[in-house]
């Protein structure tokens, strides 16, 4: 081999080295960062979830069903408001949001009644809903709460999908509230066509009552334990961000004290009642009586009223005896 003549192998080796060296230099240049500690600013989508129907006549109504089985109560209350067809259209993707916060049995009344949830699922499916998802971001372990509350079994038997979530099932959203801005929201809630809020009536140490609006703590993840610091504004921010199609409140059993976890049957009182309506504030205001309170006693209800989310003056409503 004469001088200055490369074999193919030598040529490839030398070129390879040159390419590698420039790649290292190039990578260094590209990755160089003079202020490595600055986190990138997160771009958060602004979403408003208004599932409520714009119907002032409907908005003025509250349906109250008494003395029946949980499923009978739900059926009658919804029928009194004009039937499920008023709320659910064919092909709708519906999310039913019960309170499944705690690892408790139905009798302990810390979670929404499973038969009531199942009946709601059946109603939605009968109105032609393409899919019904039962979802809640629980307090205790989600597997335990859905199982012991009886909601997993009842909802699945009724034909719903019980949503089990991981950190990937949340989306950072700008809630646009006075206090709550960027928070992770459970995706099915955002992607739904209709949302049905199914709270249970419970005592709460800080707010005195946990009802429909407070139930929306269960649509967000993140550091929820900080919300207690300004709980009334947090609840109102969430309720303004997300307005359900319909609220069907379970007061078959109410948790009268040691809420919201309870644990003893002594804390439970049976009312055999379901209250349904579109005005979240009015439904909550009506429910306060079951805990021997007035709407004014529960500050987030008063704040929601003042904000204009709805009315806590139930005397302004048409109460339908379902």
């Amino acid at each position, binding site marked *: 081999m004469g001088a200055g003549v490369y074999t193919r192998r030598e040529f490839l080796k030398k070129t390879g080295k040159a390419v590698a060296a420039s790649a290292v230099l190039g990578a260094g240049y590209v990755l160089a960062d003079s202020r490595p500690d600055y986190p990138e600013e997160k771009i958060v989508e602004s979403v408003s979830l208004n599932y409520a129907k714009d119907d002032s006549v409907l908005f003025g109504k509250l349906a109250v069903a008494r003395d029946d089985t949980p499923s009978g109560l739900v059926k009658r209350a919804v029928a009194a408001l004009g039937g499920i067809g008023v709320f659910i259209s064919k092909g709708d993707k519906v999310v039913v949001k019960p309170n499944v916060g705690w690892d408790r049995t139905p009798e302990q009344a810390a979670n929404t009644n499973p038969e009531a949830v199942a009946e709601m699922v059946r109603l939605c499916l009968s109105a032609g809903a393409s899919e019904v998802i039962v979802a809640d971001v629980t307090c205790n372990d989600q597997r*335990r709460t859905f199982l*012991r509350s009886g909601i997993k079994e009842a909802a699945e038997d009724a034909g719903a999908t019980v949503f089990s979530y991981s950190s990937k099932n949340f989306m950072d959203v700008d809630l646009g509230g006075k206090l709550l801005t960027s928070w992770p929201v459970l995706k099915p809630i955002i992607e739904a066509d209709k949302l049905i809020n199914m709270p249970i009536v419970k005592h709460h140490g800080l707010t005195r009552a946990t009802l429909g609006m407070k139930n929306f703590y269960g649509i967000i993840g993140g550091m929820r334990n900080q919300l207690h610091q300004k709980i009334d504004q947090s609840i109102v921010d969430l309720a303004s961000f997300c307005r359900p199609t319909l609220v069907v409140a379970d007061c078959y059993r109410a948790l009268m004290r040691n809420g919201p976890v309870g*644990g003893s049957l002594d804390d439970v009182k049976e009312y055999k009642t379901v209250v349904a309506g579109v005005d979240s504030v009015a439904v909550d205001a009506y429910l306060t009586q079951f805990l021997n309170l007035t709407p004014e006693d529960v500050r987030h209800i008063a704040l929601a009223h003042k904000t204009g989310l709805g009315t806590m003056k139930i005397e302004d409503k048409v109460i339908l005896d379902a």
Partner: protein
Amino acid sequence: MTIKTVRNLRRVSQGVFLLLFLWLLLRTGFSGVLTEDAIRDFRLSYPVKIFLQFDPLLAISTILSTWRLYDGMIWSLVLVVLTVFFGRFFCGWICPLGTVNQIFSSRKKNRKSIIGWNLVESNRWHRYQNIKYYLLIVLLGSSLLTSLLVGIFDPLSLIIRSIGLVVIPMTGYVVDFVNGVIFNSGVGFLSYLGIVLDMISRSVLLTVKPVHYHTIISLGLFFFLILATNRLFTRFWCRGLCPLGALLGVLSRWSILGMEKDHDKCTDCNLCLLHCHGGDDPIANATWKKSECHLCMNCQAVCPEGVIKFKLFPHEKKQDVKKAPSIPRRKVIASLAGGAALVPMLRSGDDFKAKFNELLIRPPGAVAEDQFLARCVRCGECMKVCPNNALHPTFLEAGWEGIWSPVLIPRIGYCEHTCTLCGQVCPTGAIREITLEEKVGTKERKGVSIGTAFVDPSRCLPIAMGTPCQVCEEWCPTSPKAIYLEEISVLKPNGESVLVKRPRVNPDLCIGCGACENVCPVVDRPAICVTSIGESRSAENQILLESRAKTQT
């Protein structure tokens, strides 16, 4: 049936038992059903602790340390009887750690290469193989003085905690990491892979969020070191260190299954040594070490001349077989004494009787600490099954003696009020199997308490900052709640006085579950913390005279 079939049967058996073992270990989690009664207790679907219940080493050690045989441990008699009849078949055919070691030992078996010759040499019997007998005696000696150090070395405890607390969480991390990359990539078709990975973590690994275990690096390194030694010596752990192997080796001396050799036919090809698992010198013109043989059947299967034959009731010549390891009686006594002497040394150090460790929160149903150390075999089943990731292996919280025994770390996970899973999986009753009613309590009787919560006023939001909070009170699972509220007036920085509710703990009601600590918004060092005092299992670790009287009755 030819010998090759027998060997293949052994391989199948190893595979089946390893898979069964892994399956049961994976099911050691939130996988079960609710009872039909009003209490609706959650029960596991599978007998996940069954491997441990067949372990005679754990049975004998707990008998020595407690003079009792707990519940299902009686099954270990089956293995004792079978070993007395058939030898160490457990090591070669069943033991999951043995199989894993075997997998890590495997290499090309070419007897003409240098590696092959080295392998033949290393597969002969060596003196280090006696270490396991001394270790066994030391461990039994310490068991006799009520310290169950045997759990550190028992192969089943070892592999359960190593895979359950190290390998499975590592797998979970990888699954989660890959899933995150897929998720963030936003590439459409990859999302299907993400769904599969999600299913793996939920249905196979039984996790809804990544799990973390305290100090697993220490026990993980121990395990990986054992695996690594296989690259130097085939099944180094099984041959040299395993105390269960030693026990079964001793029992196998009466075995009716033995070896006959036809010395004249042997051509010294060394194939038997090349494939030997136990290092027991099966070759002709050497003495077969019966107590070392795992009955893998390789020697007979590879022998081209038909020299070696396993037989029931063999005609053994005295120079052909050595039935028991030669451990001089003096050394037996010395080891036993050494093991026994370990205990006073450990207990003259950090001991709960000298100072209760406030961080040592034991699982609900755990027996009193001295009994606990006499029963806990460090298998980690309770930590694996805990659905809240609340139980962790200790490092030195329970002293050197209590290494890798369970401790509850509320900041990572709290004890779920209505969960009794740890007691369901404990093989030796270190955590008693309590009913849900016993754990939760009744109106007349307080439930099982594992500690007491204390509020740190310098960090508590209402007290220190005049900010409403009471998340601890919200979560408190007892009824009536153990956290009660006192309205106080607090000076805000702007000079204004505000009324807030400060949480206070009623020690009569507090069960120490740690839910309050877990959810406290002061995330680094919570403003409410649980320490072990007030635990039902201890008569001494109590604050109040009255509750002390209650635990003693």
